[in-house]
């Protein structure tokens, strides 16, 4: 299993979530986060924004789905301008459903 953490623009969140639902992956956890990338924030005229708001979407899926999901997130969240965000994929050893106590997604 793999955990996908996608940092995306807040205004693209709904589109991404509906697209993921469309390919049969409705489960996700999301949280608002603040951060900056390699452009060190955003300079608009004299105003410098050091930390920009993003939405962090966390999904745990089987290994085979990774490419499909990354493609869907890129399709929906990419605008071509800086600040589109990042996707990180990490390894997950086990997962448990608390309701049944069983292992598995």
């Amino acid at each position, binding site marked *: 299993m793999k*955990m996908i953490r996608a940092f995306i623009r807040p205004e693209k969140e709904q589109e991404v979530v*509906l697209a993921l*639902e469309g390919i049969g992956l409705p*489960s996700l956890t*999301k949280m608002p986060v603040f951060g900056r990338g390699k452009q060190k924030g955003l300079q608009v005229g004299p105003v410098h924004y050091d930390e920009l708001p993003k939405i962090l979407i966390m999904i745990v899926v089987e290994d085979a789905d990774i490419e499909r999901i990354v493609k869907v997130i890129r399709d929906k969240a990419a605008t071509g301008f800086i600040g589109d965000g990042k996707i990180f994929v990490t390894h997950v050893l086990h997962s448990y*459903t*608390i*309701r049944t106590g069983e292992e598995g997604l």
Partner: protein
Amino acid sequence: MKEITAIIRRDKLPDTKKALDEIGYSSMSIQSVEGRGKQSGAICAEMDSEIPMSYCSNVKLTPTPSSYAIEHTLPKVALYVPKRMLTIVAPDEVAMKLVKEIIRVNMTGKVGDGKIFISPLENAFRLRTGETGCDAIV
């Protein structure tokens, strides 16, 4: 070392903290998150057309696909369920004990109890003393 990410009901947090305290692993990070599970994105929305005139309550909640709810701008759409996310870093040998304890405390048998994920973690550092590895987390 293992990283345990547990997504649990909000009202179970005090019980979970107490239970983990009792077995001696009280350190954790807690975050407020929103999410949904595999109930195919079904949400409970108020659908006026389906409320019969004789219905005693003025609100009838029906499971609805979230895409439908957005398209039709249904009132009282709850797309996500608020949850608490715990992140606990524990040595390999106690990770399973903690998972069992969290499951025991949080299991109600109803949909929405949450999930637990276990991932491998390479190293940890304690900022105050500069300790590394398992010394830094116990």
